[in-house]
């Protein structure tokens, strides 16, 4: 089974803050990490490979430094890594991103299964997984919480819904986005780290993936940011003081007023 895992390098949320004085995003000391959901996608791919055989390829679109997360992915069990990187991709929204990723996947011969995290924690759109499947013309299932059955042709998986979960069946090739409930990702192994160190990362440019430049980056993006601003700050905090019973009485009064 050939499995492609799409990963994204994102800023670590605990470091991203808006400086209230200057109203700017403070990037000082911001670490880049693998998008947390993508770790679960990678782990599931490696588990499938261990059980059914095959290859796991990690793929990312990003600047050259995104190669770091590809190495980290290889140290956690991926076999090959592909970096799709070109200045022409800058400013891409999800529509341009899915075009770029689909062209890159076609270039490397497609896959039996494509796994993505449910969403990236910087944009939270959850649009790239479904959009990529549409571009590839393959079926997809979002928010997969468990793989129930798997063989070379068919998968049965559970997809998380708002009111419970659906058990669905789908023939390969297919794309899944996964939630964190699906597994507990492993830490890098020593062997994996050695492999990652020596890894030759394939880099694909816009020309390499035969891209129509009108569909790339800013040009290929129907959405654009009009304005960025700080969220409205909450009013002052009130501390409820007193003995436990006094605190409870005051709190209960407020809760009953709201409910």
């Amino acid at each position, binding site marked *: 089974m050939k499995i492609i895992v799409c990963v994204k390098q994102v800023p670590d949320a605990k470091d991203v803050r808006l400086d209230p004085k200057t*109203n700017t*995003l403070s990037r000082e000391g911001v670490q880049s990490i693998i998008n947390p959901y993508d770790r679960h996608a990678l782990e599931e791919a490696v588990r499938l490979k261990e059980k059914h055989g095959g290859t796991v390829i990690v793929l990312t679109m990003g600047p050259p430094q995104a190669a770091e997360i590809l190495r980290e992915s290889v140290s956690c069990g991926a076999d090959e890594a592909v970096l799709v990187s070109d200045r022409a991709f800058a*400013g891409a929204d999800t529509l341009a991103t899915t075009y770029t990723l689909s062209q890159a996947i076609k270039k490397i011969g497609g896959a039996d299964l494509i796994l993505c995290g449910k969403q990236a924690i910087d944009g939270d*759109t959850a649009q790239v997984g479904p959009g990529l499947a549409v571009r590839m013309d393959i079926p997809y299932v979002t928010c997969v919480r468990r793989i129930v059955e798997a063989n070379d042709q068919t998968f049965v998986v*559970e997809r998380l819904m708002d009111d419970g979960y659906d058990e669905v069946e789908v023939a390969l090739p297919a794309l899944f986005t996964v939630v964190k409930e699906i597994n507990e990702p492993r830490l890098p192994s020593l062997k994996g780290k050695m492999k990652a160190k020596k890894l030759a990362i394939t880099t694909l440019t816009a020309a390499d993936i035969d891209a129509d430049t009108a569909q790339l980056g800013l040009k290929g993006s129907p959405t654009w*940011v009009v304005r960025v601003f700080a969220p409205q700050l909450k009013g002052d905090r009130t*501390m409820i003081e007193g003995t*436990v019973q006094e605190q409870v009485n005051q709190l209960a009064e407020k809760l009953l007023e709201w409910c």
Partner: protein
Amino acid sequence: MLLIDIDACIGCGLCEANCAFDAIHVVDGIAEVNENCVLCGGCVDSCEAGALKIEGMDREEKDDLFSWTGIWVYAEYRHGRIAPVTHELLGVGRKLADQKRVPLSAVLLTDHAGDVPAQLISSGADKVYVVEDQALAQFTDEAYGNALEDLARQYKPEVILAGATAIGRSFIPRVATSLKTGLTADCTQLDIQPEDGALLQTRPAFGGNIMATIASSNTRPQMATVRPLVMKANAPDPARQGKIIHCTIAPARLASRVKVRNFVALEGDQVNLNEADIVVSGGRGLEGEKGFALITELAHQLDGAVAASRAAVDSGWVPYPHQVGQTGKTVSPKVYIACGISGAIQHLVGMQSSDTIVAINRDPHAPIFDVATYGVVGDVFEILPKLIEKIKQARSS
């Protein structure tokens, strides 16, 4: 990339003041951009000297933009129930439609419509497009996506709104990709730009640490998913009149390569976390499954939903669908009661947009108090049982 015309730049610093990313600075009287730039274009608009330009920003408009008209709302209907967000969308959709003087329509995809179209009309729809087909008995991305796409191509709405629910977030991206149009996820505010009638879509980014207003008005339809509980539904008016239009979709377009075999409902009579006005949430401070039962009990007394921090979920006290935060759900109820939750940023991003936040924690320095509207420093094991008792008494009398 951002192009700076150094002959035109007067070094006034307006760009610097308007950049949310700390990406442009005036150095020796000339603006200089650094690698933080995300090409948002904020500085371009602020520059009074016309010295800034983003390469590739000169947008070409589709030539037939004006043939697309009207506001559409996808009416989510599953297992015999209209998702409450549908009424909220009709509430905001009504405002947008009145402002633009265009009709508001709902789209219903189902195997059995019953009186749902009438309910949608009483909530504000002028028209309801109904596709009633056995192939729509179960939600599948392909059948629902193709149906909505085909209707959009035929009737050409300028705006399509859907709830940012499991279903909306799954199949709406399919429709937007097929129509090669823009889609903004999880909006919390929608406005019409007076100059050109464009839909302005505001959403939180970076887990709510910043807000971004997005436009996509050079393509049609302009599409957005909207967070549940943010918009206000209109009171239903059964006297409202509307038109029901029955539509047929080609059977091949309703075929799905994904087959739904079985549905398993959430255990118990739990309130859907995304739709609850009151959410009671517990964390590490509850110390175990037994402690967590206090959360469930308080939620029950308040008719609210149960939520949890990652620590409580990872410890196995409560299943994953209840997790709020970066790798769980994002909620914005009227009241969020955080008990024994310290308030790591990964948790805060999932709940900080709640209207009112009550925090109960032993540690007066816990970061949860930074986002709280009301703070109670104390032991959850002392406070919660008394609070439950008090609410119980008050409600029974």
